[in-house]
């Protein structure tokens, strides 16, 4: 039997057995859960050969599963992050309710994502897409009735997207007579113009929803922040990348081949930019870490969308590199929040402060992830941001640079808010009991933080597979020689050599640390955060001086006019209006039997009147 079948069987069987294993023993459930994620991941990377396809027929439709270099890149995100998040989840879910439910859907959504990447035909693509949607939806509503509307909003947007995709799929089938993606790509240049335009639009709708692209992003903050954090790291880190994956495919294999494609690219790029700005502005305002990160995810996905929409080779490299980085740092950050929530019971900045000395390893991971998120050298985020700017400038998207740059600078605000809110500030007695999260949760975070550090200096590790993937999509290979070193280069030939930067930064940092703490360190005495000089006054022990309410108020006041209009409100108003209309419409069923009988007569009369028109 082919490895691909075995992988799916392990996933499926693992999901079911894990669900029921909870009735026997909790540890058995954990072990089964890990086995059913890690074993397929191992099998995938060890045994699935790139370029090999499996064909099967189901319901009269021929399906094809296989992998190429491009989807292999994304499977790295899905299965890599999925495995780490699974390990983390074992710690996170300890002592929680509904573990079987969580594990079941976790495994299924990892399976669905793997399936999406393996699909070489539209039907299995759609099937896995929908499985991914509902499994992630079920996890989103894990927290009970308060999140019902959030879950439904997520599902409705996903469904609108997915149905748009379904329309595109059947239209393609109508034209080509086949569901294979290869056939679609092959037939696309010869299609009628309207089809050439509508099919990508409908696909992009589906992918735009998952990639949380403005104006389809409104579900994302709620869904990301209300799913259990162990899953949100996958949700935001890997699942949203499925949207990016599909978008890239559509842009490269379809839109590129028509002259109108440039409009698609421009519109998408701008939508990405606006998404980034909106996400950032809203993230700054949040007091809840989960919400902050959720909006931040939206913003980061905006960068990625912009990158792949620009579509030059450098921009693609930037977008895909950022996608990998986003999976790493946002996965880490959601895990951090999860760990904090697990240890303290809340994820609100206004409640938790001063955890740095209690959860040092968590802080370290958070710090590295935040530096990567902010795009500050020497961590990997910088490489992606740099390439993105360079590609935007060298491809003449001047205003977009400013938009992206604004979002990216404003991102520092929430980055600082995140670190300060949790780890800095006054250490209150209320949180004196807090301990570091268990090793099984800390370890995945640290592993990912390490990856980010390595990628900042040796981006070639990941740029090389990206390059392979882009070649699989038909891109030229103009940067090939660079990926073995640590040089990044833009289209004008300006370059940054990363290794000396790392060495310089490390050197300078160590020198000044040594300068500051040489001898003196042992002589200084640790004092509590209450022992500060605040305008000459020393605060009392029970005085809470932490500054956390209205944290970014000055900035918010400056941008406030721009934030009065929320797309979400329009959607809600639309939905309410729709339901009111429905409420009105269903009054047709008056409950009076006589009226119903009259309807029958009216129906007959109307039919008779319009019979010439109808028949």
């Amino acid at each position, binding site marked *: 039997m082919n490895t691909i079948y075995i992988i799916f069987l392990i996933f499926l069987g693992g999901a079911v057995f894990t669900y029921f294993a909870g009735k026997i023993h909790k540890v058995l459930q954990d072990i089964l859960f890990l086995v059913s994620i890690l074993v397929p991941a191992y099998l995938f990377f060890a045994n699935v050969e790139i370029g090999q396809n499996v064909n099967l027929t189901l319901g009269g439709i021929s399906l094809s599963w296989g992998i190429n270099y491009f989807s292999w890149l994304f499977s790295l995100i899905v299965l890599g992050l999925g495995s780490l998040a699974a390990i983390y989840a074992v710690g996170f879910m300890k002592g929680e309710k509904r573990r079987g439910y969580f594990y079941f859907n976790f495994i299924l959504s990892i399976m669905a994502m793997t399936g999406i990447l393996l699909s070489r035909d539209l039907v299995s693509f759609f099937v896995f897409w929908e499985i991914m949607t509902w499994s992630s939806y079920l996890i989103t509503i894990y927290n009970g009735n308060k999140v019902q509307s959030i879950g439904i909003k997520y599902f409705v947007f996903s469904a609108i997207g997915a149905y748009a995709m379904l329309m595109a799929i059947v239209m393609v089938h109508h034209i080509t007579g086949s569901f294979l993606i290869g056939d679609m790509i092959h037939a696309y240049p010869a299609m009628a113009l309207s089809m050439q335009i509508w099919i990508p639009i409908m696909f992009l709708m589906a992918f735009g929803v998952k990639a949380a692209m403005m104006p389809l992003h409104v579900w994302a903050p709620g869904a990301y922040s209300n799913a259990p954090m162990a899953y949100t790291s996958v949700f935001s880190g890997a699942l949203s990348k499925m949207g990016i994956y599909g978008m890239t495919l559509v842009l490269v294999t379809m839109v590129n081949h028509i002259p109108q494609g440039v409009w698609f690219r421009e519109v998408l790029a701008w939508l990405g930019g606006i998404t980034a700005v909106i996400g950032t502005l809203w993230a700054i305002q949040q007091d809840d870490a989960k919400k902050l990160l959720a909006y931040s995810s939206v913003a980061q996905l905006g960068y990625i969308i912009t990158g792949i929409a620009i579509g030059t080779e450098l921009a693609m490299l930037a977008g895909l590199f950022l996608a990998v980085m986003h999976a790493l740092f946002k996965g880490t950050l959601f895990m951090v929040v999860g760990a904090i929530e697990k240890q303290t019971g809340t994820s609100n900045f206004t409640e938790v402060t001063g955890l740095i000395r209690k959860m040092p390893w968590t802080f370290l991971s958070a710090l590295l992830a935040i530096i990567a998120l902010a795009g500050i050298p020497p961590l990997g985020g910088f490489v992606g941001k740099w390439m993105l700017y360079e590609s935007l400038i060298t491809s003449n998207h001047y205003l977009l640079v400013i938009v992206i740059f604004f979002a990216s600078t404003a991102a520092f605000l929430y980055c600082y808010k995140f670190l300060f809110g949790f780890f800095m500030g006054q250490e209150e007695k209320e949180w004196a009991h807090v301990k570091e999260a268990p090793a099984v949760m800390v370890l995945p975070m640290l592993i990912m933080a390490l990856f980010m550090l390595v990628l900042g200096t040796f981006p070639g590790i990941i740029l090389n597979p990206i390059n392979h993937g882009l070649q699989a999509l038909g891109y030229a290979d103009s940067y090939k020689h660079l990926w073995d070193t640590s040089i990044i280069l833009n289209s004008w030939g300006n370059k940054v050599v990363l290794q000396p930067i790392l060495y310089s930064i490390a050197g300078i940092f160590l020198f000044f640390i040594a300068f500051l703490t040489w001898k003196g360190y042992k002589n200084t005495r640790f004092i509590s955060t209450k022992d500060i000089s605040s305008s000459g006054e020393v605060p009392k022990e029970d005085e809470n001086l932490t500054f956390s309410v209205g944290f970014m108020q000055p900035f918010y006041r400056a941008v406030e006019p721009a934030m009065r209009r929320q797309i979400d409100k329009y959607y809600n108003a639309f939905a309410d209006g729709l339901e009111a209309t429905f409420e009105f419409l*269903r*009054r047709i*069923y*008056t*409950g*009076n*039997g*006589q009226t119903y*009988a*009259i309807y029958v*007569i009216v129906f007959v009369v109307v039919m008779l009147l319009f019979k010439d028109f109808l028949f």
Partner: protein
Amino acid sequence: MDSTLFSYLDYAVYGTAVIVMLIGFYGAMVKKSLLKIVIGLSVIDSGLNLLIVAIGYYKGGTAPIFSQGFLENFKSVSKMTDPVPQALVLTAIVIGFGVTAVALALVIRLYRHHGTLNIDEIKNLKW
């Protein structure tokens, strides 16, 4: 009886049937009393049955019964009225009877439950 007169008569039969049906519809659709509605429905059935029988009738046709005389005068098969509609009407009458019985039983139940026979007041199920 000349043919013109007969065709008037023919129309008269059809017309009567239609009028009876319309009366039935009026009763069923406009009257508020459950009993009157049931009566209306029965009247529709009657009108319909009349119509069906009228369709099967030929001018001067004999009853569609196999008899000695019929067999002797085989030509008169064309003079026989069509037996099928009559058979159908018999069936329809039986069915109509059944439906009316069910309806009346329901009316009793409704009256016990709601204490009224006004259909406008029996609207617990709606929307």
